[in-house]
């Protein structure tokens, strides 16, 4: 058993680490829920079970289930014909001004009736038809759109898609209002919306909710006079959506304003303001009523952090130089100069550490009460010069993104591990030295300490008594 105060400290440290990890997990779960929900509408063949399938690192290869067979191609072609027919019918509808001509579905020939044909449909992409074609995302199934003018406003179901249906997964039919508004539209304004769902087949489509006040957008109807969108012809695996105008305006204004942040940094009035600010700060310092160098705990902490980084970088560089094998005198001289330079820098850093130590001792700086807070109000000091608007991180494939994210987590994990290692070393080694080696618990302690400190808690050693053979 470990002594009480040591136990408390170590347990607290480990629990802190666990909490930090749990917090990351929570945030990640939140994002995952949102992403999964979105993709479920696009890829209904993703298993309904919450733990989604393992990450598809190779997204460029379509899963085997999506490779169309001859049967599928035939069905898709039928579907395409149906869509084209629907478009023709619709054109004549709007010309004739008839609003309630029902387009019926025949269950058997996989025809769909579409006022606006917007199903993300593998069919059309594979079949490659033109006008009524919509390029669906890979893996999306054909779904139906309800026809206008269906009396009850119910969604028609496509009969034939059983082969592709994924069991009887009940789809959320969505709020009833969608149906009503679908039947109502037809006016030469932007199309309200339409749900692309099949009742009873369990195949949800994309859901574009109609909200007239929210500037409806959705899209991509072929030949529809009301459609705002153009069809995508170059992206076989994507669908074309158009964000609402209000959002686009606000978003572009937002990025414009953020961009102006960095540009306002350098101007004459800013210089004058900077001078005024400096004078102000100087005055504040002089009327402080406190002696001392004026360094805050946060500043000291920040500087110590930098110095720590400097220390490890310097050591690493030094080891590199020491382990290098100079081939000729030039290289040796280069090596010597580097080492001397490193020594000078180290000397300066040491001096700074001593200054900081004196300042802290003199001022008796209190750390922030809650431990983590200083960061919150001054994040990312290294960022003052760069633009404040969100910058881009470009990646080219899912694998690359995964590598990046995994590395990032690994670096964070290593940093945490190093911190824990130091804490454990500081607490446990004194125990091992002070406990009686002949006592019963000493070996247990040694074994545990070895596992924790030398093996990262992953492996254990074995201790055998070496009895001399008599």
């Amino acid at each position, binding site marked *: *058993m470990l002594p*009480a105060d040591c136990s*408390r400290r170590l*347990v607290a440290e480990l629990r802190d680490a666990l909490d930090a*990890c749990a917090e*990351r997990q929570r*945030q*990640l779960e939140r994002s995952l829920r949102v992403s999964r929900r979105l*993709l479920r509408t*696009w890829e209904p063949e993703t298993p309904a079970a919450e733990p*989604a399938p*393992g990450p598809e*690192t190779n*997204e460029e290869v379509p899963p085997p289930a999506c490779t169309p067979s001859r049967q599928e191609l035939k069905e898709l072609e039928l579907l395409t014909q149906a869509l084209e027919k629907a478009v023709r019918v619709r054109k004549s509808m709007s010309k004739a001004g008839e609003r309630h001509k029902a387009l019926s579905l025949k269950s058997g020939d996989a025809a769909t009736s579409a006022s606006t044909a917007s199903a993300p449909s593998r069919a059309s992409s594979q079949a490659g038809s033109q006008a009524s074609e919509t390029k669906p995302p890979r893996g999306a199934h054909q779904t139906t759109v309800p026809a206008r003018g269906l009396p009850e406003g119910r969604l028609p179901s496509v009969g034939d898609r059983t082969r592709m249906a994924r069991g009887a997964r009940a789809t959320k039919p969505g709020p009833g209002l969608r149906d009503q508004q679908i039947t109502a539209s037809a006016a030469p304004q932007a199309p309200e919306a339409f749900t692309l769902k099949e009742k009873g087949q369990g195949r949800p489509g*994309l859901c574009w909710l109609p909200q007239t006040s929210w500037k409806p*957008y959705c899209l991509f109807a072929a030949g529809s006079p009301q459609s705002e969108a153009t069809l995508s012809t*170059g*992206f076989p*695996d*994507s669908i074309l*959506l158009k964000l*609402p105008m209000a*959002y686009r305006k606000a978003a572009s204004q*937002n990025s414009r*304003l953020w961009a102006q*942040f960095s540009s306002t940094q350098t101007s004459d009035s800013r210089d004058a*303001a900077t001078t*005024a*600010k*400096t004078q102000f700060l100087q*005055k504040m310092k002089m009327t*402080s*009523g406190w002696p001392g160098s004026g360094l805050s*705990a946060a500043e000291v902490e920040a500087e110590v952090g930098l110095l720590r980084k400097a220390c490890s970088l310097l050591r690493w560089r030094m080891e590199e130089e020491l382990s290098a094998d100079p081939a000729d005198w030039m290289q040796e001289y280069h090596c010597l100069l580097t080492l001397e330079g490193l020594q000078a820098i180290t000397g300066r850093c040491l001096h700074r550490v001593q200054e900081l130590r004196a300042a802290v001792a003199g001022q008796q700086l209190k750390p922030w009460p809650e431990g*983590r807070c*200083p960061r*919150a109000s*001054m994040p*990312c000091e*290294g960022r003052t010069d*760069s633009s*404040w608007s*969100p910058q*881009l*991180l470009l*990646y*080219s494939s899912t694998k*690359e*993104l995964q590598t990046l994210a995994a590395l990032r987590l690994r670096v964070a994990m*290593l940093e945490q591990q190093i911190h824990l290692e130091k804490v454990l*070393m500081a607490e446990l*080694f004194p125990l091992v030295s002070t406990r009686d080696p002949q006592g019963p618990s000493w070996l247990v302690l040694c074994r*545990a*300490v*070895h596992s924790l*400190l*030398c093996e990262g808690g992953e492996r254990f050693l074995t*201790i*055998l*008594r070496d009895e001399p053979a008599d």
Partner: protein
Amino acid sequence: MGRRRLRGHRGDAVGALPEAIAALSQTLPAGPSPEIFRRAKFDRPEAAPALWQLLFRVLSPLPADGASASPASPTSPALEAQVHLVKSALRSQGYPRRALAQLPEDGSQGSRELLLALAWLLARGPLLEQLLAQTRVRLGDEIPLCECEALASAGPLPPRQEADGPVDIRHLQWLMGKLRFQWRNLITSQQEQCALLGKIHSYTRGCHSDRSLGHLSVAETELFRDPEGGRQLLQRLESENARLEAALVWWRQELVFWKWMAGGWGPEWTAVQRASQEAVGRELATLQRAWEQGEALAQTHGPRRLVKRDAGASGGPGLRAAELIGVLRSRETCLEAVLGRLQTRCWQELTRLAGARPGLLWILPPGR
């Protein structure tokens, strides 16, 4: 009334003062009216509570999700607690004036000192930019790249029930194991999230009106699924735009504010003013150095919007994932070396200690 008086005294330039202060106030979270500022300069007690609250909002960490920054948060603590927090926060940031610490805890006085404190925070660093960046509406998908994000969003620690008694070392081993397991889970979840993001980015290629982005993010795609959420997002965007515009107005006119802050405080300042003229040059240089002394990896700080783009596509602004991967790999190597060194040191130390008990065979686990 006060406005007219100020105008009469100082002429046209000060006509811009209320406008500047109004802009400042709009940019700050829970910013009080310009009238409060004016009263604070005259140390009127009625201005104190508003300024305590303002400083509390400015100095306290954000809640975990960061997005719900509503001024009238139901969970904001009582005035006394706010006063206490503001005092300790300012102290730990190095606020130079003792007078603040001596203000009464009930928050009834000290508006002048609080105004000075606010000005001090504004003068020291990019406070407004940081506040705005913290509550920025995130439209894109981001991967946290630096610890600052993780720490900033963690919020204050909840009080924990500490283990009081002595603990078996096996409990520690168990906790370590649990931690390792959690990390593995985390990595798996992260991989899944990346795969999903990749798909969503692929599927929405060509849909974004901004060509440099090219595809939608999860938040933007969510607009289609959830128009109510979309409306709320739009509202947040619009209010952020208003704050940003106010910030730009403030920057155009802040000189007026500093001039106002510089004058009329009383006799203690005049002698100081003379002395400070000489130190200005030195101070400027020091400030500049403080900014320049950024970390070598400054570019890995801050959130970045993920954009999926084909490898063959030509340049354009933005950090390439491949570069960042290289940086992270070298950091990983460095850290692994550090950890390895530490573990070796531990092993050497244990070996030394184990000498106290000879006659034992220590069989190391395989793979070491």
